[in-house]
Structures are given as structure tokens and as C-alpha cells.
């Protein structure tokens, strides 16, 4: 059994294959909790399947919401299952699919579609002095308009895995799970500062849509607040369930935030722009 505390929610992993438990030990700090928000489990089922193409199922309590996956994808499955628990059950905060990083007490939200280089950027910034609040979800307190950390490993895909490991030899990560629905993936451990400050919220100052193009220089587009609101809504896990309160919250978030779309080839240029114009 393992406990996981992400700041926003906590998990009790009742049981899982050994390889998964050892990944948890690598990626999450050891914690003891007297209350877990979700009790989860990875189980092998169907007797004959254990011998022939073994599969694994994700359980929340005694309930499974997914089709089983090949055993080799067990660890990413655990992380996705944890995301599902939050998306399916937490409606007290507005949750948006986005990365969130903080510097000097100011948080920037980075919503971005898969393939835009969001996780690579997140890892890069985290290893350059930014605090990671989340690689997957911006958890917004609708009254205080602050982001709560949901500190989880960063999910790197395909070529980014080797790239980040080369740039930052201190990277701690899982082995690579091949051919998942997102391609090859590996999970990277957040910096210890990010974990230690997992209960510390941060004020939102910007919403930036990053796009890695590989081209030289940085192209900056100022975005209309209405468009940003709609885009945040589209990327939200629970906007529709929460309703009016979620809309009012997003309205205030975009009003108080600098909103940009940025195309960049050099991540350092991109960070310089954030530090001078957004923070």
C-alpha cells in the first residue's frame, strides 16, 4: 500500500504490481495520511489473460471505469486513472487541462493541446527555478481566484524524454512505457521544492498558449479575453457541471490576466518574455 499526496487531493494505492509501486517510490515523496480522497488499485484479471498478453485494470474503490490495458502500460494507466478520479468527482474547484508554473508568488496557466510541447516546456521551466503547480490541471479556487497545486510527475512523450534527460542530468524518471495511446511516455519527478510547497496556492497573473515551432525568435500574439475564456472553457474538465459559477470565475480570471499566444523556437527566449511581460 502507498499514500500519495498531490496537494489538491490524496490517494491511497491499495495494491498494484511491484513495478508500479517502485515507480511511486521513485516519483512521490513518502507520506502518511489519516484520510485519502480516493482509494485506488491496479489489478490483473481474467485468469488465462495472465499468461497470454497480460492486462491490467484500474479500480477506484470497487469500481472500474476503463477497459483494461496491457500490463506494460501499468504506470501511465495509474496516472491517467488518478486524473480520472479528479475529473469525475471534484466539482468544488474549476479544473482546466493546463500546466501551471509559478515564480515570485505569481502563477501562469499554460493551456495547450497535445503535441504543442507543453510538458517539455513544463519540465524545462521547472528545472530553471520555476515552481511546478501542475503539468496536467489548473485547479482554480473560484472565490479566491488562486491556483491550488496538484503536484504530479510530468508526463514526457517520445523525443522529449531523451531531450530533457540530456539537458538536465538530475532528472529522476520512470522507464519508458512504449506504444501507449500517447506514444512512448515516461514520468519525471517534480523538484522537491514543488512538492514541499504543494499546499501553497498562487495568484493567477497570466494565461499563455505556448507553441513550439522550432523557428528562430519569439512571435507574440495578444489574445482577446473573450476568446481566452472560451478556450479555457473548452479545456475544462468540469465547467459544464459547475455552470454559472465557473463562467463567473473564468470571466474574472481572464480580466485580471495577461493573455498571449506565443510561438517560440528557443525556450530561454520564451522564458525571458514571460519574466519581462507577464510576471
Amino acid at each position, binding site marked *: 500500500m502507498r499514500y500519495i499526496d498531490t496537494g489538491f487531493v490524496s490517494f491511497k494505492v491499495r495494491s498494484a504490481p511491484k513495478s508500479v509501486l517502485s515507480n511511486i517510490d521513485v516519483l512521490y515523496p513518502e507520506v502518511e495520511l*489519516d*484520510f*485519502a*480522497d480516493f*482509494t485506488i488499485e491496479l489489478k490483473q*484479471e*481474467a*485468469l*488465462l*489473460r495472465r499468461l497470454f498478453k497480460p*492486462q491490467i485494470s484500474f479500480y477506484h*474503490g*470497487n*469500481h472500474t471505469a476503463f*477497459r*483494461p490495458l496491457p500490463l506494460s502500460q501499468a504506470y501511465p494507466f495509474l496516472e491517467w486513472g488518478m486524473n480520472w478520479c479528479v475529473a469525475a*468527482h*471534484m*466539482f*468544488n474547484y474549476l479544473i482546466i487541462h493546463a500546466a501551471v508554473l509559478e515564480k515570485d508568488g505569481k502563477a501562469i496557466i499554460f493551456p495547450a493541446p497535445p503535441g504543442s510541447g507543453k510538458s517539455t516546456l513544463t519540465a524545462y521551466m521547472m528545472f530553471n527555478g520555476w515552481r511546478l503547480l501542475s503539468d496536467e490541471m489548473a485547479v482554480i479556487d473560484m472565490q479566491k481566484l488562486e491556483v491550488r497545486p496538484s503536484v504530479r510527475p510530468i508526463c514526457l512523450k517520445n523525443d522529449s524524454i531523451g531531450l530533457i534527460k540530456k539537458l538536465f542530468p538530475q532528472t529522476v524518471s520512470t522507464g519508458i512505457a512504449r506504444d501507449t495511446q500517447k506514444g512512448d511516455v515516461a514520468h519525471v519527478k517534480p523538484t522537491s521544492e514543488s512538492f514541499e510547497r504543494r499546499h501553497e496556492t498562487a495568484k493567477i497573473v497570466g494565461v499563455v498558449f505556448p507553441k513550439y515551432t522550432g523557428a528562430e525568435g519569439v512571435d507574440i500574439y495578444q489574445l482577446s479575453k473573450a476568446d481566452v475564456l472560451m478556450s479555457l472553457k473548452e479545456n475544462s474538465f468540469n465547467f*459544464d*457541471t*459547475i*455552470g454559472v459559477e465557473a463562467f463567473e470565475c473564468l470571466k474574472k480570471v481572464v480580466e485580471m490576466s495577461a493573455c498571449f499566444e506565443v510561438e517560440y523556437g528557443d525556450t530561454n527566449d520564451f522564458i525571458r518574455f514571460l519574466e519581462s511581460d507577464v510576471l
Partner: protein
Amino acid sequence: MNITALFMSEILGTFKRVDDLTLSEWELLIECLRENASLARFASFLKDEDIPNQVKPHLQSELVRARRQKQQALYECKLIDEHLRHVGVKPIFLKGAAYSVSDSAVGLGRLYGDIDVLVDKSDIEKSKQALLERGWFPQILTDYDEMYYREWAHEIPPLTHVKRGTVLDLHHNLVPIVSGQAPDVADFSKDLVETKDGLLVFSQAAQTLHSAVHLFLNEDFSHGIRDLTDLHILFTSNKDDENYWESLITLSSKSSFEKELQLAVRYCQKILNTDIQSCHVEAIYALKETNFGLLDRCFESVLRFRHPKLDSTLRSTYELAVYMRGHFLKMPFSILAKHLTIKAWRSVVESTLGKNFYDKEHEVNR
């Protein structure tokens, strides 16, 4: 005793005040209530008590979910009503949808998956066509399932809205035709109630009997406690209404569902301590002589909260018994034998080849 106290004592096995619960008791309570589709109801009936900070988000979240479901149910029901009235059909909303749209206590925190609608049998084709034109499509079924619905059922295969994903069950009766127990629907729709939005639902008495029939003439008790709680709330909120009890009793004997009503009263009292006036209880038991011996054993087990920590070792045996019973009541023996053989074969295949073997999508991929 209120609903929340009943739930707590059922799950924790002891009466406790909310502020005396330990965090690990809360953990069990939340997990168990959630799995039995009852967390929203628990949260709805909970008074402002001292709740630990770790627990609050779960209760708040469930209330938000319940509010949204209710809003959505009302929206969907209004649309369905409009579509069907457009072709001259006046639908009656059943079960969960009816509870939600009629603003009654039983609708508080009631979560459910499908919207159930009743129309006249002669209007089924017309209704299906009207709904199809507005984006409600039948799900992909196996050939066997298709035949099951066509020949034996009291409803057509579920319709799913292409954009919103809501699922609609279109009924022409309340129980499967093949059971030989399908009532004259007119008896149930005698005193229809029109909600403030102009939607039609059964009277409280007919809603109650339908709820009892649905629960006890069934083989699936995975939401047993939730459904039993529906009955508890219906009984309790109509406790002193003489007309309600009179129509309930009359309707049950007219439609030959006396036994289902007896079972509803019996297990509400046994499991949820439901407060019903003794004269009504006596009148209901007098409707028909029933031997409860074996039924008690089964239902007192399967109508409780499901959870590995609470389940008795015999629960799965009783579940199998009520599964067989439910099928037996719904189908003549020759048909039942064939139906169960097919189901059994499938579960053998699924336990060896994985439980998604029969999914149609899966087949397409292969």
C-alpha cells in the same frame, strides 16, 4: 431518524453523531455511499453539522453534481416533451426523471443514468421516429439483444443523444410483456400530475408502486439501497395522506402487484426503519398471503449497501438467487432456460478472454 443517520448506521454498523466520526470512518462512508449512488442524497439531507475539512470537498462536489443532473434532466425532459408533443404524443416521465422534474423530496440528490419515458404502445414507432430526427440514436446491440427487445421487452433499445450523450429509455409498459404480468398502463396513469413546467408524471401513489415493481421484479440489485431509499422517502413524505395510501393499495390489487408493495413496505421497515402508520401496514399485508421466509434472507442481504467491507460471505449466493428469481418472474421457463444459457456461456467466454469480448466496437477493431 433521518436519512443520513440511517445511512451512517447501516454502513458503520453503529449509531453515531456526525461530529463523532473518525476520518477513517468518513473514508469508508464516502467510498461506500459513492459506489451505491447515494453520496449526493446523503449530502442533500445532511444538516449543517461539523464536517471535517478533508470531507467537505466530496460533499460539496456531489451537491454540485446533483444540481447539474437535476438541471439537465429538466432540460432534456422539456426537449423530449416538445419533440413528442410535436407529433401528437404526450409522454409521461418515470422514475428518476420524474423525481427530478417534480421537485419532490425523493428528487433531492437522486443520481441516475437514463431518462425513462412512457408512451402509448401505438405511439412507439412515431415517437422513435420523432426522436431519431432530433438526434437520439439507438445503441449498437448484439443480434441477441436486438431480438430480446423486439420480442419480449416493455421498452425499445436505449436511445443516446448524438451530441449530449444522454440516454433515453422509451417504454410502452412498466414491466416486460413476456412476463405475463404487464399491467394495464391506464391504471397507473389515472391521476397524472402536471409539473410546473407542464411535464406529465404519475401520481405519488403510482410512482411508489412503479418504484416497488421496478425494484422487486428485477434481477439487478446493484442500486438496491438507492431504490429502497426512494421508497422510504415516498412513504415518509406521504405518511399522513390518506388518499395516497388508499390509491396505493387499490392500484396494487388492481394491477396484481400486491406482493411487490408488501416487499417494499417490509424491507423499508426492516432496513431503513421507515415510519408507516400501522393501519396501512396491516392493510397491505392483508392484501395477499405471502411466505417471506426465503425472500427475507435474500432481500435483507442484497438490499443493503454493497461494499467488500460490509458484504456477508453469503451475499453473492443471495445475489445469484435474486438474479434467478428476477429472471424467472420476467420470463416463462422455456425462454428463461435459453436466455440464461446464452448469458452463462458469455460469462465463461468473458472470464477467459476478457470482459470486453462482446463489445461491438471491439469487434469492429478486430
